[in-house]
């Protein structure tokens, strides 16, 4: 990607007069008001990747993955020596590719996580969705199954990582309370029906 900037509307190159202005400025080509905030990273040269230095002296520390390459630092995850090629830098920390992969798949490195399942929302939906008006007539009968499911999901995933940005367990609590109320309602109904049946 080059350093030139295009107007998102007309794709014309923006050369001057619109950058880092306090107010909106019209695009010189199409006239659409826009604000373009440019930061120095646009002109930063991207360093090419390093291939690792070949080991020259006998007995010198070598890379765990490339024994013929010189080790430059240890992995902060597993402690193995790494050459410049195997060194993966993340927020000032250095990892080997294996630790980076493990950190992503097992969620050990938080900054690599790019997806989370919201079990609290799922549990709440199990008790609320069947009661939403268009579904109520059918949904009310499904609560005999969905309410215990909601309790199970809430308890099973109580300690599972929740959203990165919502920190409370209020959805789990609400799901459990509503599910227990629904289960209690069904329990009372069955008891009454059993009583009528006996009499």
């Amino acid at each position, binding site marked *: *990607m*080059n350093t*030139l900037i295009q107007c998102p509307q007309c794709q014309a190159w923006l050369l001057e007069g619109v*950058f880092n202005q306090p107010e909106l400025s019209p695009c010189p080509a199409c006239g659409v008001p826009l604000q373009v905030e440019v930061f120095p990273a646009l*002109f930063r040269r991207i360093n090419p990747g390093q291939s690792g230095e070949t080991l020259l002296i006998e007995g010198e520390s070598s890379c765990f993955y490339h024994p013929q390459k010189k080790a430059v630092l240890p992995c902060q995850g597993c402690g193995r020596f790494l050459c410049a090629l195997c060194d993966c830098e993340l927020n000032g920390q250095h990892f080997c590719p294996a630790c980076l992969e493990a950190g992503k798949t097992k969620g050990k490195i938080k*900054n690599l996580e790019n997806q989370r399942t919201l079990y609290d929302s799922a549990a709440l939906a199990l008790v609320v969705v069947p009661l939403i008006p268009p579904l109520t007539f059918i949904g009310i009968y499904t609560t005999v199954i969905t309410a215990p499911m909601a309790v199970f999901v809430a308890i099973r995933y109580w300690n599972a990582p929740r959203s990165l940005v919502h920190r409370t367990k209020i959805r789990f609590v609400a799901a459990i309370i509503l599910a227990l109320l629904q289960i209690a309602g069904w329990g009372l109904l069955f008891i009454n029906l059993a009583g009528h049946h006996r009499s």
Partner: protein
Amino acid sequence: MPEQEYQRLTRTRSRSAFAVAFVSRTSLWLGKDHLLCVDSSGYTETYKRFYFRDIQVITLVTTKRRTVWNGVLVVPIVICLAGLANSLFSLPREAGAVIVTWAIFSAVFIAPLLLNNLMGPTCTGYLRTAVQIEELPSLNRLRRARKVLERIRPFIIAVQGGFPPEEISARMRAAATSPDGTAMGSSVTLSPPPAADTPAAPPVIS
């Protein structure tokens, strides 16, 4: 109480202007050293992180979405108001229920029209890094987008340094004349980041 890792910058907005439910919704959050764009489907969340050191350009472009919505909403409002006027002034007077029905229908369309105009002009926000140009759907109102920009600018400047507009124009001209479209080889130098111990400078995030 534990410190909040992320601060909300925008409320959740649907990715599509005409989508109301059952679609991905997106919001923008401010982290220690990055912006977090959260796409939520309701049961899963997908995260995109834009580190302050990597943000190259943020562009806000005004759009005609507000005008379009006004046009879409005005038609049913006119019909409902005509119906309301007809039921109010027709002789003999129609039943109160008909008048109330027309009034409710009118209110249903007038409320979003008012909201659409109170929220101000619409825009589309784009964020550019070295490898991508990402649209930020949650920056869909100019007023909010500019507030967000004001809030994150000090963090980016703290990491990358300042940049006077004349310097950018000079570099752009140099890039336009260079064969590869880059200004890497130009003689214009970047301003250094502000010193961390300057009282007026924003905090430097390590």
